[in-house]
């Protein structure tokens, strides 16, 4: 990786809920095209960190900048439009909507036709909807989901729902994709497929990916760099093999050695 400007620069960010410091003093830099892992034991603050990045929580200290632009106090939908998109730990699809409509919701911010044009069925409505429709079908084909396009999202099998969630996040056209435990609840075979998918979309869409994962072997296998969070603080960061041998990380995961 050349010394380019970071896509995402997180500078000593922290948040406290009342007296509880959920995350504090976290510094993260992501460079364009990287696939970076974020690991840590349960309750380490990984998802909270994602929520800070996406604007669900407003950090009480520090700054987050995307391409040099400060994201402070931006509402979540604006952050998504600026290029950070995410999936959720527990799948959060629009379950009563069809598969294709789930993707179309993500296209919404690109729609040019306004409410009035839809209500009065002006030409703008038809061309806009048609464009969305075609784009969404093309998009679903990439993920092999086009045969399910009229199925309600809740009727898809679990693995396909995960796939759809990633597809939907990508449809929002992000520069940075945040994946919150995408392999949770998957069997080894599905996990492998998922990893291939992530590698594929990363190339195809020119993405930077930040991945939260519990499965150590998986993270070690695919990520170029890894950050380790524990008790809301970064305790290590580096290449997978460095992380594997880091005494602090081993301590966080396995507990202190009895002397």
């Amino acid at each position, binding site marked *: 990786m050349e010394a380019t400007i970071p896509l995402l620069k997180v500078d000593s960010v922290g948040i406290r809920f009342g007296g509880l410091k959920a995350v504090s003093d976290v510094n993260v830099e992501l460079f364009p095209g990287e696939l970076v892992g974020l690991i840590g034991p349960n309750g380490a603050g990984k998802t909270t960190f994602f929520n800070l990045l*996406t604007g*669900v929580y407003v950090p009480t200290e520090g700054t987050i900048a995307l391409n040099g632009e400060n994201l402070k106090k931006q*509402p*979540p*939908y604006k952050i*998504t*439009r600026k290029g950070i*998109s*995410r999936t*959720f730990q527990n799948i*959060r*699809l*629009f*379950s*009563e*909507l069809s598969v294709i*409509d789930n993707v*179309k*919701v*993500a*296209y*919404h*911010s690109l*729609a040019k*036709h306004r*409410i009035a044009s*839809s*209500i*009065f*069925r002006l030409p703008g*409505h038809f061309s*806009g*909807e048609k464009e*969305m429709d075609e784009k969404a079908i093309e998009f679903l084909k990439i993920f092999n989901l086009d*045969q*399910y396009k*009229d*199925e*309600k999202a809740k*009727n898809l099998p679990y693995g396909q729902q995960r796939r759809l969630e990633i597809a*939907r*996040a990508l449809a*929002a056209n992000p520069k940075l994709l945040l994946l919150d435990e995408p392999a949770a609840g998957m069997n080894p075979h599905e996990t492998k497929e998922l990893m291939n998918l992530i590698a594929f979309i990363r190339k195809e869409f020119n993405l930077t990916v930040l991945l939260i994962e519990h499965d150590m072997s998986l993270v070690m296998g695919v990520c170029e760099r890894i950050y380790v969070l524990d008790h809301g603080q970064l305790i290590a960061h580096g290449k997978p093999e460095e992380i594997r041998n880091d005494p602090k990380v081993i301590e966080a995961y396995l507990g202190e050695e009895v002397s």
Partner: protein
Amino acid sequence: MTTLKNSKGFWLSIVLALIFFSVMQFTISNGMLNPFYINTLMFIGINIMLATSLHLIIGITGQFSIGHAGFLAVGAYASAVMTMKLELPFIIALLAGGILAAVAGMVIGIPSLRLKGDYLAIATLGFGEIVRIVLLNIDYVGGASGMQVSHLTTWPWVFACVMITIIVIRNFTNSTHGRACISVREDETAADAMGINTTYYKVAAFVIGAFFAGVAGSLYAHNFYIIQPSNFGFLKSFDILIFVVLGGLGSLSGSVLAAILLTIVTTFLQDYPETRMIIYSLVLILMMIFRPQGLMGTREITTLFTGKKTKGGPKDGSHNTVA
């Protein structure tokens, strides 16, 4: 492909509705329909408007609002003032009623739509009561004794307003904006994360819903010779809510159907004042036992006719009615 299929059902329903309108218009103008039935017909129309406008707020956007009678009252009184005090034509009164209710919807919606679930319900309930109490204390509109309104609502007016309401709400729902509203209903956090301005769409649905409730209020006011604040209590809000829930949350044709059915039931139960509420409640209880998802579930009438097509698609897609 899907749009073509939908529009076929759409034009069919328009034609059927126009035929129904002509038949009714013919019988009314020839005096073949007695005034009681004409009045029931108007009442059905008004209730359809109320039900579908609330359907947009609760069924589509998922914002549990129970102050709809407040918007009805704003529309009713605004239009009554227009025709009775300012002596403006009825069409202007109709629009003024709608616009004023929409403004009220925006003023109420922007602060209260930050609330969720029960809290939003309480806030909107409070709004409805505030409107009623305020009207009760304004002497200009007659206070508790109410306001005399001349009878201007005719069947063509009601029919036109109902059609416009249904078409506008349908068009809004079947567009990217409607999908944005549904995504808010399904999962607000996820909608936010997909770049949907959730506040904007919640307020938009609220404003559109309030507008049509206001227009319905105008028709209501000019149908009954007199309006009183007590006509717009929270029980009225619940009546409208019942249409929406009974029709099936999320189904436009369901709320239309429920409005028609329940209006007929209540109208004919008026002959039995002692047992009226008992029978009405029984109907509701039985409905909830045997069809908890509402009359239509989340389906639409148009998909019932074209439904066979979709069943042929992905396998096992047909039995999703078992909730």
